[in-house]
């Protein structure tokens, strides 16, 4: 908080911290953060409710967000979301949601699984991903965005043909 010129600036980082500790922005956690920041809990609640990534209701400890925006939709984002929802059936510690553009249209259709990006995914891979995630294993290692080369380099490596 001391790093910011104004202590109010810390509200989003504070809510992130609450969510990290409790799994979601609990009233108790918000009260604690508000006390430290010297603002009212209602103020922090109003901030929390504005942002899609801050949950004001309990959610599962693992989170999957499937992009259903334009580029992913064209490539089967809706089907991928359905597959994740089906795979998550009966597994309460898993929170699956559709999401607006996650900024990874190059790997469409894609999903953010516990804050990391994976794609392009087939609906059939949803169950594998969920099983790996809940078993605490590495998820779909070969589909991780972090490991992808630049598009132009991948094309050169594949002789320009990697549709």
């Amino acid at each position, binding site marked *: 908080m001391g*790093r*910011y*010129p*104004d202590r*109010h*600036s*810390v*509200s*989003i*980082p504070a*809510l*992130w911290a609450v969510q990290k500790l409790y799994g979601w922005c609990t009233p108790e956690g918000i009260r604690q953060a508000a006390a430290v920041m010297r603002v009212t809990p209602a103020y922090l609640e*109003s*901030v929390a409710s*504005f*942002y*899609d*990534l*801050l949950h004001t209701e309990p959610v599962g400890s693992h989170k999957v*967000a499937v992009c*259903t*925006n*334009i*580029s992913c*939709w*064209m*490539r089967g984002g809706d089907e991928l979301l359905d597959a994740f929802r089906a795979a998550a059936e009966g597994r309460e510690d898993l929170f699956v949601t559709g*999401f*607006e*553009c*996650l*900024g*990874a*249209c*190059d*790997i*469409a259709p894609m999903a*953010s699984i516990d*804050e*990391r*990006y994976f794609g392009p995914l087939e609906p059939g891979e949803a169950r594998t991903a969920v099983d790996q995630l809940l078993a605490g294993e590495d998820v779909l290692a070969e589909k991780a*965005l*972090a490991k992808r*080369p*630049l*598009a*132009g*380099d*991948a*094309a050169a490596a594949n002789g*320009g*043909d*990697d*549709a």
Partner: protein
Amino acid sequence: MPETRVLLEHAEDPALRTLAGYKRHGGYATLEKAYRQMEAEEILKELEDSGLRGRGGAGFSMGKKASFLPRGEIDKYLCCNADESEPGAFKDRELMQRNPHQLIEGIAIAAIAADAGHAFIFIRGEYDLQADILDAAVAEAYEAGYLGENILGSHRDVELIVHRGAGAYICGEETALLDALEGKRGNPRLKPPFPAVQGLYGGPTLINNVETLSNVPRIVAHGAEWFKGFGTEQSPGTKVVSVSGGVRRPGNYEVELGIPTRELIYGLAGGPLEGREVKAFYPGGSSSPVLTPEEGMDLPYSFEAIAEAGSMLGSGSIIVADDSVSIPHMALRTARFYHHESCGKCTPCREGTNWTVKMLERVVRGEATPMDLDIISSVQDNIMGNCLCVLGDSMAMPVSAMVRKFRDEFEQVIAEAGPELDSARIAAVQGPAETLGAAT
């Protein structure tokens, strides 16, 4: 035509992420020169002369924007807008993930020009991996003395904080970003006053996109003339273009501005998938009016040429719709996004996005009449130019372009489902005849 990699030069080297790797490729030499030998005016002049245009969407001259900041003893701020959330755009993600130090160096140099002591990178919360990478890079830069107090003995301080957002497209709007950074809900402010005069914490603030700031080190190192050697007269430089949708090789490609659009879509991105044809494309993210291949494929990919064709280069993100895509459905997806992301502060946007979604849902369900298309268009006309920020316009522009250019398809969708639904609807309305009679 191959790529022209300037910002993405050496990006294939994973070590570029580290300070040592970045320095091996010549990194931070410009920062050292700037802090040891250069005055704010020199840097500002170089940036202005280079003609570098903002890469976030508006395309405004970066140097000019920086020159708007008042001088003198007053706390000034620099914000890097890394809240890339526009559907179709994913270039900043690539730049931050592969070359975080280039951005940090750009921020530190731009901070001299803006005379800003506090700098922030406001990064969207979804980009967790990239924020982690930036955090690590910023820590390294502090360690090396490129950030912090009295940088390289220059008596200049720059505190840089990586600030994570929490999921709201609107925070990419510069004044909403400021509100979010001040710890509020991300609502846009009325302009003027512009952030250059009154921005973060009420102080003069320079806000620039990731790609814009990433250009700064090389412009200061090689000079404005070198930079103008790339691109066109009005759109100098290179641009990282995100190409996605119905193409064989979606991805980020760095090219000189002004290359033929066809080269991007067919050459670098490999053209449409097997057996498909391009039906339309967004030339600059989901808020740009769509172009048909006849209108846009042979245009030079530059700010001026795309604007002349009635659209915009925006953030430089091409989304290709092939002939399997239903335009009314694509219009609905687009509108739904803006409806979801509207902050609700001003009426034309909040209500306009809501009604546009409702009407487009009627269209795709086959419950609309051709007259509804005129109403959709008129709603868009009433949104444009009437909102606090450009979010409303960002929906109105592509939706009205789609209705205008693909009206036949909209009418066909309506007609195909029309007759049965019409009778069903009449039956539903007339259903309980007594009630209807009683009401009148």
